């Protein structure tokens, strides 16, 4: 409804969106709406989506003080400054370490647990499933204090390990539920056939099941990476040394400075965005298939 309202409110803007060539008319299948009902709202929404991206790109590339609406003359000064003076180079390395480690740990642990949930019936299974679901309601942000105390006890404050552990733990429940659903979609008979052929359970799993789990694992792994790349509070709380901090913490300190250097902030934002954009472009196709493989339906 509100999309429709918006379309009526801003008709002038619509011209600005490029309209791809109309498909040849002829048969109208059941699912075909009139073209303008697709391109008009989509175009308006895309303006809303893309202007913020353009804005940050513009600020990161145009010289300080410029008010031009196109990034020309182009400068990379902001990037150089942020990367070296504001230690985004270090933050970037830390964020990559945290992201990759979280991805690996989450996927491995969730794969093991997910397999157990999908293929066995065991005593504590119901209780375990219930715990997984309940943990969805436990906000990591509200556990900051006890978590801090645990990590202090373990001497892990100021080590990336604390953030990796915390991220993994909070990614686990959902990842495990998703993976167990993916595994349930692989017929058990395939595995049994492999046993008959002389494989043990592990080999059968590796040869038969794992390749079929690829879309699901890609979805779950990239979730874990993107979440931990983006997450802010754990890094803010558990990492005090500047040389241990991650990109979101760096961005926050750029923002909370007394006079915000907008060019530097924009450049820092672009650096923060690049890896997730790449991951996103890579997984976008898998994401939809991954979810539609029964993921949402539990």
């Amino acid at each position: 409804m509100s999309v429709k309202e918006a379309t009526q409110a801003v008709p002038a803007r619509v011209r600005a969106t490029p309209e791809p060539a109309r498909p040849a008319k002829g048969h109208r299948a059941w699912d075909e709406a009139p073209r303008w009902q697709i391109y008009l709202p989509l175009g308006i929404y895309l303006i809303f989506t893309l202007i913020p991206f353009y804005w940050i790109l513009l600020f990161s590339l145009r010289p300080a003080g410029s008010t031009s609406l196109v990034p020309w003359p182009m400068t990379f000064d902001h990037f150089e400054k942020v990367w070296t003076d504001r230690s985004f180079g270090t933050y970037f390395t830390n964020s990559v370490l945290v992201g990759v480690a979280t991805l690996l740990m989450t996927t491995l642990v969730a794969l093991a647990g997910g397999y157990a949930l999908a293929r066995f019936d065991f005593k504590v299974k119901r209780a375990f499933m219930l715990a997984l679901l309940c943990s969805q309601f436990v906000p990591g942000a509200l556990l900051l204090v006890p978590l801090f105390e645990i990590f202090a006890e373990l001497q892990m404050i100021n080590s990336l390990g604390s953030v990796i552990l915390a991220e993994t733990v909070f990614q686990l429940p959902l990842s495990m539920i998703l993976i167990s659903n993916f595994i349930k979609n692989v017929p058990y008979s395939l595995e049994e056939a492999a046993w008959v052929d002389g494989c043990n359970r592990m080999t059968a799993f590796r040869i038969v099941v794992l390749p079929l789990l690829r879309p699901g694992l890609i979805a779950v792994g990239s979730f874990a990476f993107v979440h931990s790349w983006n997450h802010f509070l754990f890094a803010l709380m558990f990492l005090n040394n500047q040389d241990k901090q991650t990109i979101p913490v760096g961005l926050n300190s750029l923002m909370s400075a007394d006079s915000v250097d907008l060019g530097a902030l924009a450049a820092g934002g672009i650096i923060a965005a690049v890896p997730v954009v790449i991951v996103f472009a890579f997984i976008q196709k898998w994401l939809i298939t991954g979810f539609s493989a029964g993921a949402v339906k539990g």
Partner: protein
Amino acid sequence: MAQAAAVAKPPAPPRRRRASATPRRLPYLLIAPAALLMLGFIAYPVISVFYYSLQNYNPTKPWRNGYAGFDNFVHAFTKDPVFWDTLVFSAKWVVVEVGLQLLFGLALALIVNQTFVGRGLGRALVFSPWAVSGVLTSAIWVLLYNSQTGITRYLADMGIGSYGTSWLSDTSTVFPAAVVADLWRGVPFFAILILADLQSVSKDLYEAAEVDGASRIKQFWHITLPHLKDAIILSTLLRAVWEFNNVDLLYTLTGGGPAGETTTLPLYIANTSVDAHNFGYASALTTVAFVILLFCSMVYLRLSKFGGESK
């Protein structure tokens, strides 16, 4: 279903080696790492939050530490107006965000589920803010809302808003400004989930409806929406919990201000524990937040008849 087969399996005896040599212990071994991690870093902290909620516990005022009974709770409900303010704001924030995100996400999913030229690119662009972090969203919208150089200046040129006002520091504009910023990032989540579920609607149903002369709107109400019901219920619930708990965006965008105008309960808790070091009180507030979340979720699932007839 699949695991039912698993239980009943007597698989044909393997030729060389028994495939499941330790079928009894294996599932426990497999869930052990996950279970241990969750016990140590979720269950234990939760229990300690419950414990601290009954204590006076403030590392900067150790002489007052000790058992407090229900004092913290009594204080929150009777003597702390900020608590009530943040509770009301949290409810407002969650309802507005989830409602609008669902509405726009559903509309977008229906649009990009059609067949049209440029669909792949359209989908990718529409979904792209999904992967952007709360902090980066803040950074972007801080640039957009800047009173001198932001997009707001150009909007003022067009007669929307006035020059020189910073939307984030004015109490009358900060709420819509923060809502729009979070919508920008939140809508794709719903669009992706709903699109995923749309793909599993059987096309035969639509064809049959077409034959019966049902209009597109009727088809939407009688075929599409019932099919999406469970996905919508589950995703709105997860999203509501997430919106309630997530403090990244508001912490960095408004800091809960101006004048505490945009402080959610979790943000207030974070401030109470991090800035004021009042861990006991923060734990009591956390306990209250748990109970509220759990209660609301139960009521929501019950009222929406989740998993009801549509399966």
